[in-house]
């Protein structure tokens, strides 16, 4: 093994609990025995690991357990209500019923609604009808606006389109 190959195993070799495979371990040990630089690196890895493992354990504040318990209680209540997965499952039958009702409702309204032709059928009185649908021209519109009266018939106005 070369130094760059050994390097990738030095961290694990430094951790006694992390046994490398027997053959790899033998190769690494053989290289380290002959290479001062890798031996120094192995010792450095080991020293840092030992120091980090000596990090004193944290002490929890006295309120930690009570605060967490209170938040978990809230989670069981409000957060449970706000949990979209719960709502999704519980509301699935309602959503299905609404979808069905909407579908049926649309079907009925389609059958009873007016068609476009129904809307286009003239239903106004005759005078309005004559302005809107028959002899409508620029002059008749101007005349209607000026006099405030609808032309009696298209023929009387004599307008030409």
């Amino acid at each position, binding site marked *: 093994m070369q130094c760059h190959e050994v*390097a*990738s*195993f*030095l*961290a*694990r070799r*430094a*951790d006694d*609990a*992390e046994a490398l495979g027997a053959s790899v371990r033998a190769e690494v040990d053989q290289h380290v025995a002959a290479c001062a630089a890798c031996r120094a*690196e192995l010792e*450095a*890895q*080991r*020293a*840092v*690991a*030992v*120091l*980090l*493992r*000596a*990090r*004193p*354990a*944290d002490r*929890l*504040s006295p309120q*930690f*357990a009570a*605060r*967490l*318990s209170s*938040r*978990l209680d809230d*989670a*069981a209540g409000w*957060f449970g209500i706000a*949990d979209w997965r719960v709502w999704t499952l519980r509301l699935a039958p309602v959503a299905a019923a609404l979808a069905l009702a909407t579908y049926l409702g649309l079907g009925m309204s389609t059958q009873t609604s007016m068609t476009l032709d129904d809307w286009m059928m003239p239903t106004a009185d005759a005078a309005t009808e004559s302005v809107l649908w028959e002899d409508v021209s620029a002059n008749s519109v101007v005349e209607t606006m000026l006099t405030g009266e609808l032309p009696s018939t298209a023929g009387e106005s004599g307008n030409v389109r």
Partner: protein
Amino acid sequence: MDVDQELVAAAARGSREAFDDLIRRHQVSIVSLARALTGGSADAEDIAQEVFLRAWRSIGGFRGDSTFRTWLHRVAINVIHSHHGRVSRLRRFFQLAPSDPAEAADDPIESAADSIDVEADVVLRDAIDKALASLPEELRIAVTLRDVQGLDYREIAGVLDVPIGTVESRIFRGRQRLKPLLEPLRARPGRSLS
């Protein structure tokens, strides 16, 4: 056999008592993880609480592909990552100076080591946390999971969802970078850490 297994099964069925037992078993570890990965932040307990809240909400989805400890650490890493992002955004918004000791101080150990006689445990922990905080995030997480939390390489690979070779490389490089930073602590009289 994973000693958490029965507790996890009961908690997944909605037992708060079982989940409280799980909390008692892992709370110190998760607070330590949060503190070590946030440079000794005072928010560590709040972060740990958020970890357990998320775990409680999603324990029903825990399939047991890994140990509960591995799964909980994965949850914790996600919460801590979100915390880092939120703090960074707030700092950018208010244009505050970084509190990251790696950015704020040239020597993260110096100030702590000077007062090592005041309360040795607290100072040592603070110094280690600040040294860890000076590492790039991926190295910091790998080294912390291994040397502070005591996870094995396979567990770390599971938590981070990376190959074991990547874990080995990150731990190797992380320790390399930590060596000069921790040297003042090793040289401290009365300590026999190596």
